[in-house]
């Protein structure tokens, strides 16, 4: 069996995964850099976090799967998109291991890895993909050897909007700000009116963020609403926009399936809304849980395998990283 | 005389009568102003065909259904709905009966024989036989210039395609439909 080890570190999660050629996930472990309430993660500190944990994580992955490095056929790492310093710190480690172990490297697009992992786990054939995370918000559809972006945010990502609001209301970043907003939102009752901005397939979130920030800081108005109400309203508004856009892409491309991936994709309210949407149009939705939704090493390993089996490897001097790496830049060789 | 069901409101229908050479319009006006008449009397010059009356009638019944009549009753509402103008007085002036009119439409909602008899004895004029008219037969008294003036239809709008009368018809319907929504 061909085994690929995947390395992910484009944001604050450091993940190592080992995946077999039949899609078996042999190992998938993660270490997350968590900052105190009210603080985001800075690139420099995140890179430091990754550097200090990566070797231990690799050793643990091998140990818990009873494998030796000799069993690994290929190393896959995230080339981008992501934060520069964390990406680089992981790439450097991979280059080192590649020379130490004498293994080929495959450079992987992070977004593609999310999509392929989603397809692997759920068995979705040709879904419209709603890719929602701290750094990305895209509605994607496959056609003619490319994952094409049908719609996306024109300003900040949906996860970023949630994270930044979490900082405003000073809630913990553990396990993740989005998760804590989700819990608070369950207790929200009153819908606060927020801007709702979709332009064609594109969405805009920055106006919503500034509007809800202003509201949260307005002591007078906050006599009417609870923090829970704000979380609830924020989720309702953001997710409605996402589901609406995704539905339009499904209608436009004539697709029946939808797959949500990325960190925000494991939000249960979002999944519920997607289910309600597809049931109205006789479609099928696929969701994955936090093990595979949130950034992880296995997804990089699997996407790496798909490229590796088609003969793609990345020469050492090309194993660079890039903060900008469009989903539609990758030539998809492994799909019809 | 022609009777049509109101498509979206089962159980409702209108009957359209067209008169010409009417001699006693002033007397009819007097009756009208007393608010006694159970039908609408409509200036026929800006009406292109029966479709126009039916669309306005549908809208009138719709407003009745939601309890949102803008005017006093369904008959004035019909006239009001024909007009692009949201001013009631203006609308009644342009699309209702005027003293000097010799031709006009009478429209009844769910008309009965007894009412037709009343109309017959009230109007001293000739009822035009519309039995061969279909929904889109051009009203013989249609005044294109007046219609364009009342509905504010400019040359630019009519240039979009070449089928002249159809285009004008569409523009009239469109202008009626957008009433109150701008």
């Amino acid at each position, binding site marked *: 069996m061909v085994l690929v080890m995947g390395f992910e570190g484009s944001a604050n999660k450091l993940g190592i995964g080992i995946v077999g050629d039949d899609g078996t996930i042999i190992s998938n472990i993660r270490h997350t850099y968590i900052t105190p309430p009210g603080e985001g993660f800075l690139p420099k500190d995140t890179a430091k976090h990754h550097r200090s944990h990566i070797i231990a994580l690799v050793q643990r992955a091998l140990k818990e799967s009873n494998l030796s490095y000799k069993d690994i056929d290929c190393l896959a790492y995230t080339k981008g998109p*992501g934060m520069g310093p964390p990406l680089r710190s992981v790439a450097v480690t991979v280059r080192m291991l590649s020379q130490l172990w004498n293994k080929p490297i495959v450079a992987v697009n992070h977004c593609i890895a999310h999509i392929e992992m989603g397809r692997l786990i759920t068995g979705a054939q040709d879904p419209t993909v709603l890719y929602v995370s701290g750094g990305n918000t895209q509605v994607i559809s496959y056609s003619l050897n490319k994952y*094409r972006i049908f719609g996306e945010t024109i*300003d900040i990502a949906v996860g970023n909007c949630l994270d930044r609001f979490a900082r405003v209301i000073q809630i913990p970043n553990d396990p993740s700000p989005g998760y804590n907003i989700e819990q608070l939102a369950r207790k929200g009752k009153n819908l606060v*009116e927020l801007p709702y901005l979709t332009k064609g397939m594109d969405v805009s979130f920055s106006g919503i963020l500034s509007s809800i920030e202003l509201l949260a800081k307005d002591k007078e108005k906050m006599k009417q609403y609870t923090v829970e109400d704000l979380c609830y309203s924020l989720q309702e508004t953001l997710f409605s926009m996402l589901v609406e856009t995704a539905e339009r892409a499904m209608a436009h491309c004539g697709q029946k399936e939808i797959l949500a991936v990325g960190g925000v994709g494991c939000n249960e309210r979002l999944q519920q809304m997607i289910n309600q949407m597809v049931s109205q149009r006789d479609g099928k939705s696929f969701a994955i849980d936090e093990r595979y939704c949130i950034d992880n090493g296995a997804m990089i390993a699997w996407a790496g395998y798909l490229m590796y089996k088609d003969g793609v490897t990345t020469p050492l001097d090309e194993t660079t990283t890039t903060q900008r790496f469009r989903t539609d830049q990758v030539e998809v060789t492994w799909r019809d | 005389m022609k009777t049509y069901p109101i498509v979206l409101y089962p159980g409702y229908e209108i009957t359209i009568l067209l008169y010409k050479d009417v001699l006693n319009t002033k007397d009819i006006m007097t009756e009208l102003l007393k608010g006694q008449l159970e039908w609408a009397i409509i200036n026929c010059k800006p009406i292109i065909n029966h*479709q126009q009356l039916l669309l306005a009638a549908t809208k009138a019944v719709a407003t009745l259904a939601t309890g949102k009549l803008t005017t006093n009753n369904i008959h004035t509402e019909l006239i009001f709905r024909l007009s692009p103008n949201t001013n009631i007085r203006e609308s009644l002036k342009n699309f209702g009966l005027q003293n000097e009119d010799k031709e006009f439409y009478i429209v009844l909602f769910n008309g009965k024989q007894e009412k037709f008899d009343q109309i017959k004895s009230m109007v001293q004029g000739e009822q035009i036989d519309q039995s061969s008219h279909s929904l889109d037969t051009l009203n013989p008294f249609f005044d294109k210039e007046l219609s364009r003036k009342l509905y504010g239809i400019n040359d630019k709008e009519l240039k979009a395609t070449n089928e002249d009368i159809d285009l004008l018809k569409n523009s009239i319907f469109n202008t009626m439909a957008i009433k109150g*929504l701008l």
Partner: protein
Amino acid sequence: MTTLATTNNNEIKSIENITSLPNSVLLSQGAEAKTYKIDLYGIKCIVKERFVKAYRHPTLDQKISGKRILQEVRSLNKCKKNGIDVPALLLVDVPSNRIYMEYIDGITVKQYLYNCFDQSKETSTTTTQTQTEAHQQQIDICAEIGKQIARIHDLNIVHGDLTTSNMLLRNNSKSNIVFIDFGLSYTSTMTEDKAVDMYVLERAFISTHPNSELLFKEILDSYQKNSPSPKVAKAILDKLDQVRLRGRKKLAFG
């Protein structure tokens, strides 16, 4: 019954369900609305009924539907008044989220381009001349698209969902493009918004029609050349370059 005005209003029932109308045909279910074809007093009529989105909070849903239906009819009306071919409105029923409008006889521009594409590909049965003709037809229609969008933008209307499925050819004539589905349209004077409108079209166009970069360029050329305000059009296209780049630049991490 004396007059209808004195009858009990509650007795009046409108048809809640379009499908209960005789001869109504469901044409499509889009993301926003269902469209039916009915006969309305001898007029071929499209009924566009926005449906309630089960996933959306009812208050939010109502607010959005109400706003969009008004935007839609206002944009349609403004286009029509300015000689841009759009379906004529017949009835607008805001409470039940329905717009009744003129049914347009004709194929979509999307279908038309596919047909041209097929013609140009059938090398065994067609001559080079018909291939050239098919190509010219594609060019012509793209020029017309560019021109008409420029006119719409000149009215400060942003369509919001420009795709080749939202353009019909009245009587299948390529010189007569009818723009439909203004459900996401809005009024704006901003270059940015119009540039994004073009960007939406560009992405939809290039992903729907294979090898269509050249055809899309024709749309852009004509957009500028035939705009009532060429300078403004130029500024919009310059902005479009930025919007394209921004799509790439904005992509961060995660």
